[in-house]
């Protein structure tokens, strides 16, 4: 440590990231924390220290509704991703006998991450829309007679779209966690006379929980803060917290309230990350 401190490269190695964090993370967060206590006084804002903005957020039913809706959508997205990702990862790690197939399938799930996020949201708008691909396809098949508006601009379309977008973030950590489980553990439990279901329940699942926790954290936080997909496929009643924040900084021009909302979002994310950190660490120490 002393060695590097004594010269310029060492100072740069430590200095650059620390400075960056100070200027581009801590300072901006500090500023929105400050703003969140200010007062809105049209057309500008007054420096103040009061909790009015937070009180509004937690008492005004309009905001509460958005907050609960966001929570519900994010939870549904995480759950749906989990239900799709876990069996898939399990198949890859324990059932797929061909190394090449495993690599290909894994790549196939991760690859969409590299394809534009916006595009992935847009595709579902074109598919689910009233004039969209799904409706016209179903009409073509004569399953329905007229276009249905059931598919787009509701919470269903949001969950489908967000799941489609964020599922790689669920697959990656679960796959990694399952891969780390030594095969001889399941063999040992089979040897002890456990049925496959029981050894899954008592051995595989508990050992993969840290990966599941990481996957839930990522998909939940990412859906929680999304405002593009709701905008494209959510419809009039599909506003999520992030859309409200965006509005406060745009048309509504209420920065203090928007800042307070952003702080609430920051706190939600931070607490989820620390809970999941603890879960993951517990999983690590529990494993040895």
């Amino acid at each position, binding site marked *: 440590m002393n060695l590097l401190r004594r010269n310029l490269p060492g100072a740069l190695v430590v200095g650059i990231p620390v400075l960056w964090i100070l200027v581009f993370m801590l300072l901006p967060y500090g500023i929105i924390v400050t703003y969140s206590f200010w007062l809105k006084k049209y057309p500008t804002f007054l420096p103040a220290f009061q909790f009015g903005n937070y009180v509004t957020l937690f008492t005004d039913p309009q905001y509460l509704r958005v907050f609960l809706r966001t929570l519900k959508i994010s939870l549904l997205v995480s759950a749906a991703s989990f239900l799709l990702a876990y069996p898939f990862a399990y198949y890859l790690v324990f059932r797929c006998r061909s190394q090449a197939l495993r690599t290909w399938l894994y790549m196939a799930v991760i690859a969409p991450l590299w394809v534009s996020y916006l*595009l992935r949201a847009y595709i579902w708008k074109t598919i689910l829309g009233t004039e*969209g691909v799904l409706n016209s396809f179903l009409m073509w098949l004569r399953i329905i007679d007229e276009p249905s508006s059931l598919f787009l601009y509701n919470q269903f379309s949001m969950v489908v779209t967000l799941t489609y977008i964020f599922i790689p973030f669920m697959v990656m950590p679960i796959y990694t966690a399952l891969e780390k489980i030594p095969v001889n553990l399941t063999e040992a439990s089979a040897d002890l006379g456990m049925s496959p279901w029981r050894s899954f329940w008592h051995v595989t699942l508990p050992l993969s929980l840290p990966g599941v926790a990481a996957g839930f954290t990522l998909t939940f936080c990412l859906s929680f803060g999304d405002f*593009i997909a709701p905008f494209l496929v959510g419809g009039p009643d599909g506003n999520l917290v992030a859309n409200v924040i965006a509005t406060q900084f745009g048309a509504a021009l209420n920065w203090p309230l928007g800042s307070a909302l952003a702080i609430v979002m*920051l706190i939600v994310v931070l607490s989820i990350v620390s809970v999941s950190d603890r879960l993951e660490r517990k999983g690590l120490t529990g494993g040895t």
Partner: protein
Amino acid sequence: MTKNTPSLMARYGADTAFMTFVAALMAFLYIPIWVLIAFSFNDSRSLTWPLSGFTLDWYRKLAENTDLQAAIGNSFYVASLATLLTLCVGVPAAMVLHRFDFPGKSVFRRLILLPITLPGIVTGISMLNMFRLMGFQLSLETVVLGHATALLGVVVTQVYARLQRLPKSLQEAAYDLGATPWRSFVDVTLPNIRSAIVGAGLLSFVLSFDEIPVTFFLTGRDNTLPMYIYSTMRRGVTPEINAVGTIIVLLSLLLIVVAVIATRERRK
């Protein structure tokens, strides 16, 4: 032996169930992309089934669209600079995390990894407030700073993971053989983490190229490609967007191949 038959059948059944499930998941992931590609060649303005005929008109329109070309240029500018910056900050940050112990290290780690889970909108508006407060004009450069901050976590996780797999003695051996810290970094550490840096750089480039939430708040008059597409979408869906999308999908595919080749580790 007789006892084996039902379990064998159960296993066969389970395998079939798994295969069906995997096939369905693949369909869920890839049919939409094929739909996107198919309609970019369809000669009708509306995106309805069945396809009516083949055309390259939408691609021709793209070629004539100067706004779009400017947006693509801007995106390349932003993504290249942001990638460069985030590597310049992220690689040292990973080394600090790997090598040093200091009070506040866990806070440092948390902060640097935060943007991975933190929604872009928070990064976006907090930096927006700062730039306004300091009297900065919003421009592509402020977008670059925003992207570099948001992508820091991606670089740090990838490079840090590689550094941890690198034996500490390699660096010590370089010192021992007369290399200064800087030289040992260039001669020994860097070549051994190069593929991780390339991989992280490619991923950062793609993510930056594609970024909206941060860009949304930090850009001035200039549009990046996703912002341009986004504003077009607000006016409605058109096959033109499908054509752009198809090109993006193909380019992404190309980049994935490059990334796989570049980050493939040498067989030992």
